């Protein structure tokens, strides 16, 4: 089977040659098989979000190549890579257009990767489909389809963004700490939804989290990043039986220092 995502030795330095120079990614190499659901952990500044953003094309990388589903996307701009990707962000404000209503936001997502012409922006048939999809979220959003998204709560917006990211089955789903800004109860609900959707559509996904328990409980593979590199990569049965203590041991061995677990969990 061909890998869905191939990150081949990418590196990225921000503001090179200045006092704010930051080596965000030193050498990241990662291949994802179809159906892989990878959780990504690591401390602040480890390069987790930078890696996801490099895949999404938010900025060009300095070295290395990235291919999605066999297509070399290294030099494709962000809006073109979007055709392959579904993305949910940490800030609930980022994933939706606040001044547009729910159905308009969904119609925008439905046309990801397609040419946008002078046809009407949303059809009656679509509207019915959106209503059905929204009802599955169980948040009552199906009755508020013409409400502005800005009126929704953070949790509702994240659930909607998740739906928008997966409505058209993406080759790869990128979740960038998408529950970090939510209260614990809402976060649990959104995580549950994410797991359900990923399982149902057999998606290949990467999820960044600060919560070690979630990282261990979810997905079939776990990677840990440190100083711009992947230092731990466990999968399969090994991943299934992983404990927090195992993880800390693995990290110490790889990074050569003790893992500050509290910081990781709390930050």
């Amino acid at each position, binding site marked *: 089977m061909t890998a869905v995502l191939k990150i081949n030795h990418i590196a990225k330095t921000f503001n090179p040659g200045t006092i704010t120079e930051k080596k965000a990614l030193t050498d990241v190499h990662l291949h994802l098989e179809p159906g892989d659901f990878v959780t990504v952990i690591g401390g602040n500044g480890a390069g987790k979000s930078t890696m996801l953003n490099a895949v*999404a094309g938010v900025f060009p990388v300095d070295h290395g190549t990235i291919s999605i589903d066999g297509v070399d996307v290294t030099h494709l*701009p*962000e*809006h*073109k890579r*979007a*055709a392959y*990707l579904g*993305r949910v*962000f940490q800030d609930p*404000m*980022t*994933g*939706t*257009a*606040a*001044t*547009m209503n729910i159905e*308009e936001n969904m*119609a*925008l*997502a439905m*046309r*990801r*990767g*397609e040419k*946008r*012409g*002078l*046809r*009407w*922006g*949303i059809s009656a048939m679509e509207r019915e489909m959106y209503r059905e999809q929204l009802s599955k979220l169980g948040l009552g959003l199906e009755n508020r389809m013409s409400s502005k998204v800005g009126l929704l709560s953070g949790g509702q917006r994240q659930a909607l963004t998740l739906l*928008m990211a997966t409505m058209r089955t993406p080759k790869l789903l990128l979740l960038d700490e998408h529950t970090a800004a939510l209260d614990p109860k809402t976060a649990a609900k959104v995580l549950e939804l994410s797991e359900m959707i990923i399982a149902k559509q057999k998606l290949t996904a990467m999820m960044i989290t600060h919560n070690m328990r979630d990282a261990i409980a979810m997905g079939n593979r776990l990677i840990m990043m440190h100083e711009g590199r992947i230092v731990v990569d466990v999968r399969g049965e090994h991943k299934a039986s992983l404990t927090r203590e195992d993880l800390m041991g693995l990290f110490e061995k790889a990074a050569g220092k003790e893992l500050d677990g509290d910081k990781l969990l709390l930050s």
Partner: protein
Amino acid sequence: MDIMKLLNALPSAVSQGLIWGLMAIGVYITFRILDVSDLTVDGSIATGGAVAAILIINGWNVYAALLAAFVVGMLCGLVTGMFHTFFGIPAILSGILTQLALYSVNLRILGNKANVALSVNKFRLLLSSRNVRALTLENPILILVVFGVFLVGVLYWFFGTELGCSMRATGANRNMSRAQGINTDKNIVLSLMLANGIVALAGALLAQYQGFADVGMGRGAIVIGLAAVIIGEVMFAKVFRNFALKLLAVIIGAMIYYIVIQVVLWLGLNTNDLKLLTALVVAVFLAAPHWKAKYLAGREQGKGRDGRA
């Protein structure tokens, strides 16, 4: 003070308001929908007027001249858009650069003259201030209302299409738009083109209305446009929620602006002080939401104190 004098001046104020209302719709597209402050308009409105005047003088049909003005206005927007997206120059500065360059271009178009007469006696014009009190189909108010309704209708349709929706999304949230596969740079350029096309069209109508095209006719246009947008919003935000009605509110805003100007002139304001007054009025309206929020926040705090006491 003679009230008849004011009433006599009102039809002219309404016509001017309608023309500037069309222009203000261009400002609304960049300022409100795309969230970009575009200062190209001071130049492109004069470009529209100059292009239309010269073409009509050279025997072009008036509708063809209007279309040409629209297209040339779009090119002005294209230049600003390229400055901003391709060369990475901040939007405000990009607009100022184009506006400055257009001053020379406009003089060229006008044959190196500062203004060119476009008399309704000599040419078949679409509208003229001369007919402002006429009870015929030639009355500019009637013609401009038809124009306004048509423009609002077309824009209502356009911003409902897939492309139009993607442009609204670009204005609402650039990050989200790119994540949904929208080329935000392209949309910013497109909207600047559309806006300046409309502004130039308004310039072409204005040149006919006033009977001349002038290289300085756009000075302060952005401020008048903003005044119209803001007055329209302040007065109708609560009642007009539909997009077409919001555009209509912009046109009405411009009309109110010109009527108010007419009233203060009638009250004895020196014409030379007009721009000062306009700037002050716009500053007050722009500041209003900020101060209102501050006042409300202060009152909330006050309540809290009372509660504890």
